[in-house]
């Protein structure tokens, strides 16, 4: 049963908890909702299950439920597994079918309960009181309760919160299997991102009370998502099979926010401020830099490390015949750039892509002009990255690297010794050499009073 969530909004009093949340969940797929504490995940599930009165609609196979409350085709499992009732496990699971139970429990219903207990490996607890079980065991019981009526739509709020690592993986794997076998539509929230990455078919990221992004786990689980949404430094590692794995490093220090990190990959609310200010104060050096470029219109321009998108806008203004691409490693920048240049995007003159300069998603010889402002400082492997730039360029294509220099022969040693972040601290001549080695003929322009630098290269 297809679930179409359309413009859900919810407020506690005047405090908005959800704004305009829309996504689809499809049969046979596990749709996982992830996001930090307080993002509104549980509220969203409550709205989908119609336990809360909300704005927007939820359609099941195109129909909006008229009657309030949980419909018969849906199972909802809440996060809390506390239960003191004097009922045994069998009875608790049996209650999963409370909407259809007759007074006398039929042999079919008894068999259904026994089957699901066996599936979850908790048959041995059948006659134990629910209150006597551990939190993890109770969680399995309530999962059994949710599954016993064979729902078409299965909604689970943190089904693994009380489980150990083994059971977390095993259980979600099991739910994923059941979802595919029975073709049910499973929507759940998960805090354990490794599990979500491994077993989800779709991921909806909720942050700041709305949908931050939606896509496959591969699309959603990025370093910038973790920085932006979870305030965590993390590495996404690709194994030899091409599967993504998550390596979570440490929280981003909020109190002593790292300016270099923010400049490299702006994230969160603070990141937006950084982007906004970069868009403003980069204007003079960009204006000066592009004056050094040829007048003839290139066909396709790329801006690497586009930030808030001011450079590519200047470029497409200067060359009205051209189309452009912009790429940045920061999700926040990409979003900002798209909003900032929405007119150009609507006119199909600009595409903004999330990506890393070290392996750009463009074919060989795609661009006849590549620009980049104040970005090469942060490139991880500058020499090879410049070669990657050369790869995506046509022969005789123009490369324009601009920056505001603060480096000269007198201070370079001090700067290098204080360079904790592995930034590329280079003299003009060193940078020119690297560009040359990557396959360009170069020229260097300097604006002495403001210390602007432009290195113009032509691909050999």
């Amino acid at each position, binding site marked *: 049963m297809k679930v179409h969530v359309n413009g859900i909004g919810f407020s506690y009093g005047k405090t908005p908890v959800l704004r305009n949340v829309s996504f689809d969940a499809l049969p046979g797929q596990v749709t996982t909702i992830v996001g930090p504490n307080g993002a509104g995940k549980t509220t969203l599930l409550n709205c989908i*299950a119609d*336990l809360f009165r909300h704005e927007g609609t939820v359609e099941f196979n195109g129909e909006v439920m008229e009657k*309030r*409350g*949980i*419909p*018969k085709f849906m199972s*909802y*499992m*809440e996060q*809390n597994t*506390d*239960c*003191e*009732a*004097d*009922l*045994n496990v*069998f*009875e*608790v699971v*049996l*209650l*999963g079918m*409370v*909407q259809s*139970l007759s*007074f006398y*429990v039929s*042999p079919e219903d*008894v068999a259904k*309960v*026994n089957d699901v*207990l*066996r599936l979850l490996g908790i*048959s*041995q607890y*059948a*006659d134990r*009181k629910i*209150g*006597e079980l551990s939190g993890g065991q109770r969680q399995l019981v*309530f999962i059994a*309760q949710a599954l016993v009526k064979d729902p078409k739509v299965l909604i689970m709020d943190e089904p693994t919160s009380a489980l150990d690592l083994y059971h977390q993986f095993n259980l979600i794997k099991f739910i994923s299997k059941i979802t595919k076998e029975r073709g049910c539509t499973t929507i759940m929230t998960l805090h354990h991102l490794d599990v979500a990455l491994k077993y989800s078919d779709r991921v909806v990221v909720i942050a700041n009370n709305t949908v931050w992004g939606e896509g496959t786990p591969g699309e959603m689980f990025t370093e910038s998502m973790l920085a932006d949404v979870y305030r965590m430094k993390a590495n996404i590692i690709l194994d030899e099979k091409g599967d993504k794995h998550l390596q979570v490093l440490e929280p981003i220090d909020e109190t002593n926010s790292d300016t270099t990190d923010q400049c490299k990959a702006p994230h969160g609310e603070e990141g937006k401020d950084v982007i906004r200010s970069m868009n403003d104060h980069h204007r003079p050096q960009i204006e000066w830099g592009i004056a050094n470029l040829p007048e003839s219109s290139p066909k396709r321009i790329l801006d690497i490390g586009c930030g808030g998108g001011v450079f590519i806008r200047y470029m497409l203004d200067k060359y009205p015949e051209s189309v452009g691409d912009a790429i940045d490693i920061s999700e926040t920048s990409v979003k900002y750039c798209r909003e900032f240049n929405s007119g150009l995007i609507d006119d199909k003159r600009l595409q903004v892509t999330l990506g890393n300069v070290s392996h750009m998603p463009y074919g060989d010889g795609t661009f006849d002009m590549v620009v980049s402002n104040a970005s090469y400082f942060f490139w991880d492997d500058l020499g090879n990255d410049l070669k990657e730039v050369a790869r995506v360029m046509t022969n005789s294509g123009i490369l324009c690297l601009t920056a505001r220099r603060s480096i000269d022969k007198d201070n370079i040693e001090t700067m290098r010794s204080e360079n904790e972040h592995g930034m590329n601290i280079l003299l003009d001549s060193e940078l020119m050499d690297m560009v040359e080695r990557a396959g360009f003929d170069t020229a260097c322009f300097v604006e002495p009073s403001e210390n602007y630098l432009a290195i113009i290269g032509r691909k050999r």
Partner: protein
Amino acid sequence: MGLTEKKEIVENAAGNTGFDYNRYSAKKYMIMTLGLVACIVFFFLDVVFSSTYINPMQIISTIIDPDSVSNAMKVVVFDIKIPQGLMALICGASFGLAGAIMQTMLNNPLASPYTLGISAGAGFGAAFAMVTGLGGLAVLGSALVPFSAFFFSLLACGGIFLVARIKGFSADIMVLAGIGLVFFFQALQALMQYLASPEALQGIVFWTFGSLQGSDWTNVPIVCVMFLLIFIIIYRKSWVLTAMKLGDNKAAALGIDTNKIRKWMFVGISLLTATCVAFVGCIGFIGIVGPHVARMILGEDQRFLLPMSCICGAAILTVADVASKVIGNGIVFPIGILTALVGVPFFFYLLLTRKKKVTS
């Protein structure tokens, strides 16, 4: 060696077939049947034993062959003792049922039929009738006090209903509103006692102890019909009530409109309790302990718990009635005092000998 192996295999096979729910249920049905038989026995004892010096054998022969005894004896047995015994059974069952529902719907093991102010309302109503005579309503005669008690207990429930209608039928709101009303009506009752003449005061105090002695063939059928009606209506919802024991959120997640259920359960047991209290007064303890005993024996599945609460309530009240006649040596002890004196030791016995904790 071979035998042991075979036994293990058989045991494993039994384990694989899962939990034998039918056997588990059959055991509960059996226990309920035993309880029912016990109630009939207690009823019989209740009829046979008297506070006065009537020989039990004489009563038995009256029942077996009514024509062989005097008219006075017939009246004693058929118009006094049997109605009183039936009243003990039905009111005990009603209090047991009302207590079980109240504990379930408020999700509170301490709840009783009186938690939400029914007894306070009835107490004031009775006192008010005794003190003022209710002017123009004096034509009601002996029905005056029950009528007033019934009216005011329903008035108290109406107050809670109104508050809950505005704020929602959540357990918290209902308990808070109930506590407020209990204090309000207790204050009014105290005022009545303050204003009462010594005779009326004695009547009020005696009424609050509760008594089965007003039972006759007018009020027993009323209580009986009310009990059957409410029991049937409530019993149809036993699965839903069982689910509510998991907590409101879990019940809602199972598709149950908990506030709606609570509303109608409240209306049902208010009517039932008010009817009983009007005729027998505020007999305490049964409504709180009856369901607990039933729960300890049969667990929380309300298909079993509700009838068993009725059985336990009926049994406790009937036994207490027997005791009130036997130990009084010519005087009938107030039944409300006896229910606690008889029930509490038994309750403690269960509490102490039962391995598992008593849970809400």
